[in-house]
């Protein structure tokens, strides 16, 4: 039973007890009050673009180069300086280096889970997988908690949410309506469109309305018979109906509406055009967009896949240069449109890669230390948080777990990490229970 007993300074006892928990999160009471006030500030939208590097990106070849190590650790690339004194990143990311003031890197992320499904689950939900509860991912939680109206699904994945090997649905114990809507196709292709948004020949707006009505009636008849508690209309059908009857939706997914020079800035690969689409969706108020960029599981052939893209490429179009273009175009574009302050950008994969190159010219899974990058929103850019040891094997200081990342991401999105959800059988689940918010990240 909770009674509200005021302290002499007017702070409610319930808050005090909460703070006890929050101190474990690394925040003090004033932080809590400030964040609560900020969260209540509805005029500030808080949206998120998660750039998911599926497969586990090598930290040594991106944000945490180790030039002073033997060749088999160092790898084939050199570091370059960035706009931030003392911070170097991989030479394949010159644009990111230039824009470093807006970007924060965390180099001491650590996890024990080196398998794709497990690692992806941990990074995307803040919890290690357990057979007992299916935890929801960030996008699904945001979709669940965002009650605003709108045509678009609240959780969208470009092009698809097939992450970590594909066994993660992302919705956890939340309802189907929170599952990411995968737009499908390849935004980089000239004929890209989201399928089935246009009416089938013969179908009109009024017929769509009628079908919606008929379907709702059928579900209602079933519901009465079943004595069930599920909503009478299927929420996924509802979302689909809304998309289909909205001109705004069709136009949002039409990349040909973007001027050519803007398209070029993002780079012509899927990740670039996916980021461009993500920006369009953010502009239209979609709270959570995942850009899924697969291919980072470079057990072999790393040089070609990371840098060139294909053997003998004159202009490198591999994973890293493509990420470099896409990420910086996105940050600058959002900034130009005055949206960067409201849009948190998170760049990560399920783990890093082995400090020592293997015999196939690649690196294998390495969760013990890896890097994550963030920008936008409340992020204070221009810093590298935490360090890995001299060979990028373990965190040297300030180890940060995926649970900490989760608590931080939720806080940045104005969501209380200790907020409790309930599974269908009544079990209470905190959004993030054990994570500590990373204070240095906040402006």
């Amino acid at each position: 039973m909770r009674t509200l007993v005021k302290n002499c300074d007017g702070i409610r006892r319930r808050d005090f007890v909460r703070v006890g928990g929050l101190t474990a999160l690394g925040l003090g009471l004033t932080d809590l009050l400030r964040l609560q006030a900020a969260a209540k500030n509805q005029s500030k939208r808080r949206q998120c673009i998660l750039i998911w590097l599926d497969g586990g990106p090598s930290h040594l070849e991106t944000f945490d180069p180790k030039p002073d190590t033997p060749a088999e650790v160092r790898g084939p690339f050199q570091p370059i300086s960035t706009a931030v004194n003392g911070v170097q990143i991989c030479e394949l990311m010159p644009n990111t280096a230039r824009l470093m003031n807006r970007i924060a890197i965390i180099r001491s992320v650590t996890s024990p889970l080196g398998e794709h499904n497990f690692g992806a689950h941990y990074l995307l939900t803040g919890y290690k997988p357990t057979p007992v509860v299916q935890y929801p991912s960030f996008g699904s939680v945001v979709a669940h908690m965002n009650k605003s109206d709108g045509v678009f699904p609240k959780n969208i994945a470009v092009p698809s949410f097939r992450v970590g090997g594909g066994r993660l649905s992302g919705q956890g114990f939340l309802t189907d309506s929170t599952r990411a809507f995968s737009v499908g196709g390849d935004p980089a292709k000239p004929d890209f469109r989201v399928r089935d948004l246009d009416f089938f020949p013969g179908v009109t707006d009024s017929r769509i309305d009628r079908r919606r009505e008929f379907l709702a009636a059928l579900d209602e008849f079933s519901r009465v018979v079943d004595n069930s508690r599920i909503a009478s209309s299927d929420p996924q059908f509802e979302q689909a109906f809304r998309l289909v009857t909205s001109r705004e939706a069709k136009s949002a997914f039409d990349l040909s509406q973007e001027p050519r020079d803007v398209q070029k800035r993002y780079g012509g690969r899927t990740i670039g055009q996916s980021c461009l689409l993500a920006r369009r969706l953010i502009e239209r108020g979609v709270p959570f967009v995942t850009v899924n960029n697969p291919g980072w599981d470079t057990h072999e052939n790393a040089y070609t896949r990371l840098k060139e893209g294909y053997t003998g490429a004159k202009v490198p179009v591999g994973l890293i240069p493509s990420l470099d273009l896409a990420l910086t175009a996105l940050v600058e574009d959002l900034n130009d449109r005055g949206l960067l302050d409201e849009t948190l950008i998170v760049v990560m994969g399920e783990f890093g890669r082995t400090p020592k190159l293997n015999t196939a010219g690649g690196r294998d899974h390495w969760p013990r230390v890896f890097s994550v990058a963030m920008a936008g929103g409340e992020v204070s850019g221009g810093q590298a948080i935490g360090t890995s040891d001299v060979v990028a094997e373990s965190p040297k200081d300030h180890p940060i777990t995926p649970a900490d990342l989760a608590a931080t991401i939720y806080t940045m999105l104005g969501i209380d990490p200790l907020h409790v959800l309930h599974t269908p059988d009544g079990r209470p689940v905190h959004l993030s229970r054990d994570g500590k918010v990373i204070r240095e990240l906040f402006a």
Partner: protein
Amino acid sequence: MNLFLILAFASLSHTPTAIDFDTDVLPVITKAGCNAAACHGAAAGRGGFKLSLFGGDPAHDYDEIVNRLEGRRVNLSKPTQSLIVLKPTGELDHEGGIRLDESDAETISDWIRAGAMRQQLRRLVSLDVTPNDVIVSRFPDKVELKVEATFNDGTRRNVTREAIFYPTDPAAVQADENGKLSVRRRGRHAVVVRFLTKVRTVQLTVPLHDELVDLSKQPRNNWIDDEILATLEVLRLPPSPQADDATGLRRARLRLTGRLPLPGEVIQYMAASDPKKYQKLVNQLLRSKEFTDYWTYEFAKLLRIRSQPKEQQGALAFHQWVRQQIENKTPLNKVAVDLLTAEGDTHTNGPANFYRATKGPRDQAEYVSEVLMGVRLRCANCHNHPLDRWTQDDYHGLSAIFARIEQGRIIRVASRGEVTHPRTGQAALPRIPGQRFLNQDEDARQSLADWLLEDDNPQFAKAMVNRLWRAMMGRGLIEPTDDLRATNPATHPKLLDRITQDFVEHNYDIRHTLRLIALSAAFKRSHVASERNRADDRFCSRAIRRPLEAEVLLDAVVDVTGVSERYDGQPVGTRAVTLFNPKISSQSLDVLGRCSREDSCESSGTSAGGITQKLHLINGALINAKITAKSGRLRNAIDSGKSNSQIVNEFYLRVLGRPATHKEQTYWKQQLAADGAGERRERLEDFLWSLLSSREFSMN
């Protein structure tokens, strides 16, 4: 003289019973967490100190502790100054913190004082935990466990203090270090108990409600119901009533043959007064060609039958062979032996394709263990499996068996072929997992098959029976179905054992077991929930409904609308369920989320369905083209002059397998009233569209 006696006494009192490294020191190290996966038990060790996971390899651990690091971990002249004591007691900086209390530290230093020897005085033979099956009658409550180890020298010892307790659901059951459990949530929970390499699972059941349930009047059609009802009684979960005739017919048809019942069938069945009509129905379904087609499909998914990059003949031969086995009622154990020992031309010898399902001996080992044993061996690639008994030797040993198989168009056993064991750096010795290494001259695959299918090895039978149960009831008795292990207990362990044994006794006949399940009252229970069993998704108090599989759903849409679907390269009228290759191009099947068979399709669809599918149902060709087709059933019904109510009734029977209720008839009468033929047709199309998009249709 006195001094001598005192010294003698002193040395005597410091070495009471000899401390055995394997069974006294290792348990202390394991309990302290030193050899857990997050610390020194990791594949790469930690801080230059690598122990085997949970003490699975005492010889290695002994060597590492005593001989490595120039012997500095152990100080024979000053035992308490040994690194292995100083670090975990906090005397020296230790990233892992303080792990040993005084008495544990003393055990280790005493062992060092006695010479730090490995005498292998005894070996652990068995582990008993009491109680191991508890019904907690008061709630919340505490339970105290006692753990006893039996060694090969005949000694028994209470090892509760050294055992480790892992509740699978820590929010439901909390365990302290000494085996005192505190039960916090209702339901059925498991606690895993480990001592050295042996693991036991304790089951705790807390009734879901305080009020008892009276199950005396519940239908009991066979011993499956006895077991299910016994569990419901303990849990105090009241079952829902039996489903009505129409629901029972639709469910049996779909789950045994993957097809909807025809309208005439529904009417006839509902009207029949024969009390044995359901048994007769089940028998008829089990004998039908549709049964063979559907279960070929189910096994094709399990076996991951799909074409190679440049040719389809192998997959076709494989599919045809599987179908033949099911048609001929080949006992499933014989099918397994044929698969394991197959060789030859994959284009003509179907089962040889078992060896083309994967790309290499390790993948093959994982495939064989998952499909035929229901076990995920893959964790044991890098270290001994933490939750089960499989070791790296098992994983690489099983891979070694397959290393000599040439995986091309012709499957052949080569004279050479090996995999490197990552720990030894040498060729891994072929091994039957959990059993023994194989001799040079043995036919490795035959020996594996012999072991897997011998009568007192229930592994294969259990894995298969669990899948049959899942197909019929919507959820396996063990989930996931490819993760059978002691630490992942069944919801109904006795029931699973009984069905397994019964399956073996009846010659591994799938029809026998499917009949048994189909005839149980549990199978025929309604899915409608009551207040008190609403949250149940696993104890069979009510039926679980699942979305229809992509191929079944598409076939159903074709059946209802009378408009067939064309599949690339296949004759007209081919049913999706009979397609041998999931790579046959079909946009409809892709949108409906068909399984690619890159794995055994056992996890419920993740990328399936979703808004993308709904968009396609609304605007795509799948339903729209079929309901508007001039040759389709709806158009024919309109053109032949049927009335609205006739059309409504017919399609209710076709789509939902039941007549429309009075309320529904009234509703549709209103909605379908139209000015003019054009509008009437559109309304009827919209009606049929909504039936085909409804949950009642797409679920079963």
